[in-house]
């Protein structure tokens, strides 16, 4: 039993495996039974990328999969923290705080599961949807639509095809899958008893919310925000919602589209 309740803890763990996916992205497997056994899809960890206090803060990475005492993450190099992650080798020690946040299932509260779910992922935002798909079961997945930028994302696109058989893949320049964005792969109206679970860049999430203005309650979006503590303490990660500022780290990262004040969201 986790006697601290749902609040995250810090674990000194070790890298069990590291599979580069090309173009500066990769899949990191970390052995940490406490996180692996309790994480739910949409939750994330703060992983500290270096030694000492520089870089100072942990980097938020979604849990992509968890089984036994191992959980996995996918990173894409965008700055110095992720560059350090890309250099991790098997056996390297890492400190992880987790599991953090309200995942896709928890965000729905007590409601029974929908009959069907459409998964929509943009770039590395696709990652946590793999975990969601596993837990939902194939029969419940109505459609899986993923988008990447294009050039420089070939390796990651290959992984997407492997992870989500039958995925509808789009890229801005047609390099991978069909030319287009995730939006082009989504139905014009959201069928009844179907939910849309989405994760990706803010622009994509906002566009999805705008596409189905009356169905915001059935759209679950996992958001990003700069974070310091990952435990709800610093109030650094808040976003504006209809019920005031909410913390992405512990009140999210999954919110329903109707909760979020999309127009007041600042870029992160």
């Amino acid at each position, binding site marked *: 039993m986790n006697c*601290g309740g749902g*609040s995250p803890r810090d674990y000194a763990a070790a890298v069990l495996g590291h599979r580069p996916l090309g173009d500066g992205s990769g899949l990191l497997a970390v052995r940490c039974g406490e996180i692996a056994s309790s994480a739910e899809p949409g939750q994330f960890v703060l992983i500290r990328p270096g030694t000492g206090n520089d870089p*100072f803060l*942990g980097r938020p990475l979604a849990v992509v999969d968890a089984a036994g005492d191992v959980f996995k993450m996918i990173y894409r190099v965008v700055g110095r923290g992720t560059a350090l992650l890309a250099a991790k080798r098997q056996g390297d020690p890492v400190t992880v705080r987790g599991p953090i946040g309200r995942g896709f299932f928890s965000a729905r509260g007590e409601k029974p599961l929908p009959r069907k779910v459409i998964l929509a992922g943009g770039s590395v935002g696709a990652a946590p949807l793999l975990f969601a798909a596993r837990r939902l079961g194939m029969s419940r997945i109505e459609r899986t639509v993923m988008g990447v930028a294009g050039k420089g994302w070939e390796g990651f696109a290959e992984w997407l095809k492997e992870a989500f058989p039958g995925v509808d893949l789009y890229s801005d320049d047609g390099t991978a899958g069909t030319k287009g964005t995730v939006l082009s792969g989504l139905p014009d109206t959201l069928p009844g008893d179907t939910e849309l679970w989405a994760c990706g860049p803010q622009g994509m999430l906002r566009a999805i919310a705008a596409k189905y203005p009356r169905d915001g309650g059935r759209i679950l979006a996992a958001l990003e925000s700069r974070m310091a*503590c990952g435990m709800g303490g610093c*109030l650094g990660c808040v976003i504006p919602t209809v019920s005031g500022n909410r913390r992405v780290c512990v009140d999210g990262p999954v919110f329903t589209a109707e909760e979020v004040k999309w127009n007041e969201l600042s870029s992160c």
Partner: protein
Amino acid sequence: MNSLRADLSIAVGGLNLETPLVIASGVWPYDPALWSPERLEGVGALCTKAVSLQPREGNRGVRVWETPCGMLNSIGLQNSGVRGFLKNALAVVRNSGRPFLVNIVMESAQEVRENLALLRDAPEGIEAVELNISCPNADCDGMAWGISPESAARAVAIARSEWKGPLWVKLTPQAPDLPAVAKAAESEGADALVCGNTWLGMAMDLKGKRPAFQRVTAGLSGPAVFPLALRTVWQVCGAVSIPVVGCGGVSRWEDAAAMILAGASAVEVGSALFTDFDLPRKITEGLAGYLAEEGLADLAGLVGLGRK
């Protein structure tokens, strides 16, 4: 463990702490799980997030930014106001079983009086207050009360007249003459001084080609500022005779020991908790080990030893 605790106990400005490790204001959420004694091993006391008279939304836009060995924040005092605090948070806070301080932001004279009156009359009774005099305020010409000795004296006098219990005053390192401000706070009846708060810094958003924070400047905290904070602790301890609590960049037991050698009776830890929940335990164990190695019977014997 019991014996370790006994060694580290210390009386600071009206509070009896089992350890000299205080959780700084603004970093610990009102999450019942995190205020459970099990998650607070090594903690001697806790400060709440700033409480203002009215609820505050806080700042828009980017609120935190990583820096080398530290971080900038521009939270803007988001809180649900003193009534919200009393109604929702106080019960959680009490659950720790440890002394706690309600961090009060020094607003206008009138607001802070009302705020303290509500705390004073809280049915369950609140033991101690930490007065944060580092935020800009209109009653003070838009400067922070803590910038000049005169305005700091006024601020402390106002709070003192409303609050008879333990009153810690949290200084700002932006004061040009910090020892003078410290003396002013002492002479107006502060029970202890917390030295200090965040350091004024800034970050630039290279993609946006503009300051990262909407208010341009923000407060720097974390290990980066430790050498600066230690210097202010040294200076302030030389200026006053009430207890001083060191704050700024503490992330290892060595930092706590250095501040105590410089004259602090206790330390507050803030940002470093973002990187390690277990720090209070590690720091207090490290301190206990240091005391033993140096042949000191109790923590009080370490206070100010580096000034001799």
